[in-house]
């Protein structure tokens, strides 16, 4: 019999912490005034948000004729950004729900911030289709309400209406999941608050949580069922987004591979954004002992996996276009790679297929610089992917007389920048006023996953003994 005994698992919480240390380390940053780095980022974010608000006001007033979209390229910048943001909004629920069901303890370090990120990203995403309606004050027409036009109900078998239900459900469920998880941690903030204002503020938000055994029992039951519900939900959301394309008759969109390919891409970009944010957060809030290299390594592994799935999907699409013998499909893909938008296609291929392969190297997976750099590259690549799918498939219509090019106007660019402003403003406020790491969850894994020299030595002795017994066979 020959096998290699695995090395002891790395601790998920470094520095031999006590429960008190955990509370203080994670809740500490919420006390007092934020640091200089926080203020710089906050001012930039609010400035972007204000500019975005200006651009939105501009095009709501003058109409979406101020956009670069035209009769041929009817979906462009807005839907690209919608799909991009909604993809980013997939990692939080994946981490908190699917990894909870798989009992992955490393999720405890990053789930709370990732869930917050999910909620803010979905808020940004939702703005694009709503504002694309042009006359946003008529937006309620998409809802099935009794009306005087028949009543004329919305088309319940249209993927666009499915999107309305999927995204609003996803937002609501993620928000509830996030907030019920946050309640015990807000109670911790309340009970350690010094000033009367803080006590009142966190007191109201904590809903009166006491930590009673019965309440914890119900809380655990609730978390587990919400995780069970969120798992198919998160998969359904991007599946339905992909149906927006896949159920159409546009060459390059009309493929059955879209749902799994979009879901993998969403997880891919979501984890990249989590990494970008967590690397900044752990540095600014000094949480290196809770968001360790081991966490970053685990997330990079998921990026490698989902990046490879996305790569396989791209190649499958190309193969199918050729193998189908469908001239339109073949032209759509040739045009993507060699047409006027070749740079977006090759940018996508490079950023999404080639760059994550660097993570096969353990050194790169555990390098802060490379992880940060590649996480940004992946998000640029995923933006290109949506641009490629949407714009390059549309701009050469069936009739060459309809052929056109698309480029965004300053209003559209400003709108996109504004959603960055919204996202980072909300995230920074969250990081300032709430614990960015799930305090109670960290405490519940502290004994089994925390660094503890005495326990490590004990385990090592057991393992060494076991290895000695097998030593003969191994050698």
């Amino acid at each position: 019999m020959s096998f290699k005994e695995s090395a002891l698992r790395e601790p998920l919480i470094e520095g031999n912490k006590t429960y008190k240390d955990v509370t203080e380390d994670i809740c500490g940053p919420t006390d007092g005034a934020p640091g200089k780095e926080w203020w710089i980022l906050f001012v930039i974010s609010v400035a972007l948000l204000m500019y975005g608000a200006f651009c939105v006001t501009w095009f709501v007033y003058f109409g979406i004729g101020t956009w670069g979209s035209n009769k041929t390229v009817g979906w462009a910048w807005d839907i690209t950004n919608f799909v991009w943001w909604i993809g980013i909004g997939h990692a939080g629920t994946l981490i908190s729900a699917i990894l909870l069901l798989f009992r992955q303890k490393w999720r405890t370090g990053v789930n709370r911030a990732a869930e917050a990120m999910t909620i803010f990203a979905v808020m940004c995403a939702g703005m694009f289709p709503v504002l694309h309606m042009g006359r946003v004050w008529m937006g309620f027409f998409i809802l099935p309400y009794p009306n005087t036009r028949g009543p004329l109900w919305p088309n319940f078998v249209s993927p666009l209406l499915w999107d309305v239900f999927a995204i609003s459900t996803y937002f609501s469920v993620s928000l509830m999941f996030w907030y019920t998880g946050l309640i015990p941690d807000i109670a911790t903030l309340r009970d350690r608050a010094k000033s009367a204002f803080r006590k009142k503020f966190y007191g109201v938000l904590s809903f009166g949580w006491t930590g009673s055994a019965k309440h914890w029992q119900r809380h655990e039951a609730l978390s587990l069922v919400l995780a069970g519900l969120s798992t198919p939900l998160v998969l359904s959301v991007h599946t339905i987004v992909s149906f927006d394309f896949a159920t159409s008759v546009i060459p390059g969109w009309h493929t059955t591979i879209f749902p799994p390919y979009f879901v993998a891409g969403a997880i891919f970009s979501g984890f990249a954004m989590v990494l970008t944010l967590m690397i900044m957060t752990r540095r600014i809030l000094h949480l290196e002992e809770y968001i360790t290299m081991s966490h970053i390594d685990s997330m990079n592994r998921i990026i490698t996996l989902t990046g490879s799935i996305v790569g396989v999907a791209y190649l499958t699409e190309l193969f199918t276009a050729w193998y189908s013998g469908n001239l339109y499909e073949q032209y759509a893909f040739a045009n993507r790679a060699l047409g006027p938008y070749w740079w977006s296609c090759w940018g996508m291929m490079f950023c999404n297929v080639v760059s994550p392969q660097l993570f096969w190297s353990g050194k790169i997976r555990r390098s802060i610089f490379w992880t940060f750099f590649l996480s940004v590259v992946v998000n640029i690549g995923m933006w290109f992917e949506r641009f490629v799918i949407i714009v390059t498939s549309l701009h050469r219509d069936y009739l060459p007389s309809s052929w056109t090019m698309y480029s965004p106007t300053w209003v559209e660019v400003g709108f996109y920048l504004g959603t960055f402003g919204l996202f980072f403003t909300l995230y920074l406020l969250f990081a300032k006023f709430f614990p960015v790491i799930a305090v109670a969850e960290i405490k519940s894994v502290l004994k089994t996953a925390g660094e503890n020299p005495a326990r490590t030595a004990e385990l090592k002795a057991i393992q060494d003994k076991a290895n000695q017994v097998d030593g003969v066979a191994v050698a």
Partner: protein
Amino acid sequence: MASKKFILGIFGDEDILLEAVPAIQEKGVKIHDVFTPFPIHGLDTAMGLRESKLHTAGFIFGITGTSIAFGFMTWANTFNWRTNFGGKPFWYVPGYIPITFELTVLMAAAGMVATFLYLCRLAPGVEKIIMDPRQTDDKMVVAIEIDEHSDVAAITVALKTAGAEEVNEKHIDNWYRYKIM
């Protein structure tokens, strides 16, 4: 009686607590509640709590969502106002699946959260008795309600021998202003 008295056993380790709870109960001391900063698996069974029925509530809410979504779409598209969408059948069941699924999940989740908040009497602004402010930080608090007939000394000894780090008393005046549980 406008005031209540509790004896609080403060524990610092969940493994000690898990053994302490049955040991205290064996001595005939009734535990009012245990407050912990994080969920401790096995504490509910050690205290003899019933299993949570929240799942059942979730199922009922979920099935309600399924029926509402499917029933409403059926009614709207076949009885109320028939609309021809691309020649598809009016009653187009496969096309109803996504919205039915989403509404099932939404109703199950929202219903369960509401049930959870109702059962635990949690709401914005609710104030409850905090036995010890450390119970949301690093200590586990075993609360035992006492009256004039209780043997305080015996309870204190039971808590200490079970491994309590401290034993305190807590008086709550006008307890009816709060929801203790």
